[in-house]
């Protein structure tokens, strides 16, 4: 994994260097070939503003980004998640928690693990922590619609467990939840 990434990065750096050079040598400023989703820049630069309001009006908002991530569990964390689920099935919740702790140490950035812990916290009747974990999973899963929807569903469950049904319904109405 690590070597492949490093090799990929090196290849990219070389490629990007070449592209930058190519761009500089072209007389007109470079324009991306697939400009469909590119916001069109204003023709003349406006004077620098001291503050930029969010959601400006000069440009159309960019289209939703294509999925850039696809989270999966590695074989190690997969086996730990399987073990934790078996422990939950046997009613060994503290044991399951310890097992998932181990998995988190291996892949701390994987939203699927945070979703798993959020579910476990729900099983432990700790809805506030389930909510926090679901929100954390939601933040981590930006760029992976499937993981995001999954995190959203756990979050909705955690909200309902705290009798915050209205918030849960609003969440479920979000387009990305489907």
């Amino acid at each position, binding site marked *: 994994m690590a070597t492949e990434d490093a090799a990929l990065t090196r290849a990219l750096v070389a490629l*990007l260097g070449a592209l930058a050079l190519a761009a500089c040598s072209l007389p007109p400023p470079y324009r991306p070939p697939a400009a469909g989703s590119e916001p069109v820049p204003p023709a003349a630069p406006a004077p620098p503003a001291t503050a930029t309001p969010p959601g400006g009006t000069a440009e159309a908002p*960019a289209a939703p980004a294509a999925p850039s991530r696809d989270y999966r569990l590695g074989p190690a964390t997969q086996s730990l998640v399987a073990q934790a689920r078996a422990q939950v099935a046997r009613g060994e919740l503290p044991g399951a928690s310890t097992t998932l702790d181990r998995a988190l*140490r291996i892949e701390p950035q994987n939203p699927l693990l945070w979703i798993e812990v959020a579910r476990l916290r729900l099983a432990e009747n700790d809805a506030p922590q389930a909510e926090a974990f679901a929100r954390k999973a939601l933040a981590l899963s930006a760029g992976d619609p499937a993981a995001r929807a999954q995190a959203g569903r756990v979050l909705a469950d955690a909200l309902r467990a705290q009798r915050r049904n209205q918030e849960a319904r609003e969440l479920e109405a979000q387009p990305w939840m489907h």
Partner: protein
Amino acid sequence: MSRSRLRRRLLGAILGTALVALLAAAGWVAYLDHVVTREFQGRLWSVPARVYAEPLELYAGAAVGGDDLEQELRRLHYRPGDPAAGPGLYRRRGGEFDVHTRRVRFVDELRAPVRVRVRTSADGVTDLAAADGSALPLFRLDPLLVGSVFPVHGEDRIVLAPDEVPPLLRAALKTIEDRRFDEHHGVDLRSILRALWANLRAGHITQGGSTLTQQLVKNYFLGDQQTFARKLTEALMALRLEAHFSKDEILVAYVNEVYLGQDGERAVHGFGLGSQFYFGKPVDELDAGELALLVGLVKGPSYYDPHKHPDRARARRNLVLKELADARLIGAAEAERAAQQPLALRPHGGGYVPAFLDLVRRHLKRDYAEADLAAAGLAIYTTLEPRAQAAAERALTRGLRRLDAASRNRDAQLEGAVVIAEPQSGDVLAVVGGRDTGSEGFNRALDARRPIGSLVKPAVYLAALETGRYSAASVLEDAPLELKLGDGSLWTPQNFTRETYGSVPMVRALAESLNLATVRLGLDVGLARVADTLVKLGLERRPALNPSLLLGTVEMTPLEVVEVYASLANGGFRARLRSVRAVLDEHGEALRRFKVEVEAAAAPAAVYALDRMLVQVTERGTGRGATARLPHNIVAAAKTGTSSDTRDSWFAGFTGSHLAVVWVGYDDNRPTGLTGAAGAMPVWADAIASLRPASWDPAPPPEVDERWIEFSTGLATSPGCSSDAVRVAVPRGAALPARSGCAAGGDSLADKVKSWLQKTLH
């Protein structure tokens, strides 16, 4: 009254008194007997809490290269050899390891010895297999024993079981301290008389006639005071002890009880800990010379302290070696050879982690009384990562040595502290409390509260981003300003370079740590909001609302800085810092588990935008030297900090896998002449570089767009168009003024190519 009656009365009185005296004496002895049995039996099972590090997880893809693995096995005292011969042995062939593990207890499992085959490349583990060849998804090595919590009287020890006491140690103790141990009944009249004679001839006390049993009694029940009554009590107790317990029980108790030295607050007791403390290895791996040194120390641990008085210690060791040879416990040639050896003490910092244990003790104090920790055999499983701890210690020691050599302050040594954590879970991986990493002392990581300088700036910028009125591309004015303070005085902050920079985008003001632009920004946002931001990120106290807060006059310990920066590294979630995973009782049952706890602290989109700016600190700003020291292409977000007159040099930063905070300064608070980049940054980078870090690379939240802007002007641009294009995150759809004629896209072509390549290659 007749004479005979008088005589009878007198006799009666004498007899009565004698009877009372006899009864009293019997009662006294019975009392001593009771004390001896109760206390001694109590001591036999009273084991201090043992503290274990996080076990190293092995799995395909784990960043554990062959040399890392071998180092870890050595740390765990595995020996090279034929693994078929038994547990504790491993064989390495190139990148392939065959390990026979020991019986070991984890938080959730007691694992019997097992054979495992691990294949590694230079980068990490490639695969794992059980003895029968079947693939294993993962496998963990033993948790390393890193110390014990023995708070009663500051005594620390590692208790050895009878079968763990080497035969040579038993024999050597008898030879040196009590030759007739196997014959006497607790008190040795012959040696007392001999000592008395020697002392009378010398006119003062030169010899003690105490048996091992008496020494043990003195250690257990009595102090150092020498009175006749004490001596009598000691002798009586020694006799009672021998009456109740076997010679071997007494000898083993002695081995575990004897005082062998002092380490700050901590008293080193017993040969188990003595061996670790002086030589960094278990007692069964000591050679004759090392063992002789420890045995020789019994006579006077401070007089013969090998660290302070190496010549005395050497002479004493050689005397012991000679006596062992005379008693034919070792060969004459071996004694001769060992006497030629240097003391070979453990280099400071190897294995013992007082600063981390200090944190463990404080975290546990929330749940446990100190006394409970000293009770029956608790096992404390911590989040300590020995590799990270070693890397932090090495980086700090080397860095400070280098800085001292270049410093004009010849009469003082720089000090420092390092804390490393895993950002997502809040697990503390390493704590170094000073340059003398192996000794207990002032724990700067936890207790040195110093002004944080520009480390405060991210809180200012985050507060600004959260108002929604600012983005990374917003242009700030870096121009002189004067401020009238509450006490009527005038405050005229300046940039570190004493220059002003005019209109600068926020990303540059932060990356180059411009004071004037930051003060203006902070005043516009409001001091209260900045203080609130610090608190919600994790600072436990609300700082005073002085304008100088914006330049970091607020004082924090390195650990507190970790707490605040963890929320930045964690995408706006605050994870409660954790050093203990679980506490187990002596049967391996979990008494207490500490779970990961997170809490939403700041808006993820604002934190992401801030972190993107902090990346520019290492790419173009004050921290740009750090990236060169990291493995190629590792993205890190960081901030330098320098307090006024360079009294404190700080560096706080994170990659995708590690968060580390480093402080460098003098204990007496004199100026160091070092900026954060000159002092703390190299230490930070060295520590992180050796840990095979992963890049900071979270997915951008849906509320932001990633855009290219010019570092100097803040104008939207593309990498091909401006030489100083930097990537920033701005609110989705934000209107940015653009460099004329430049395509200011969300994604550059480079990004598109990268994502296309990634999709194609996966």
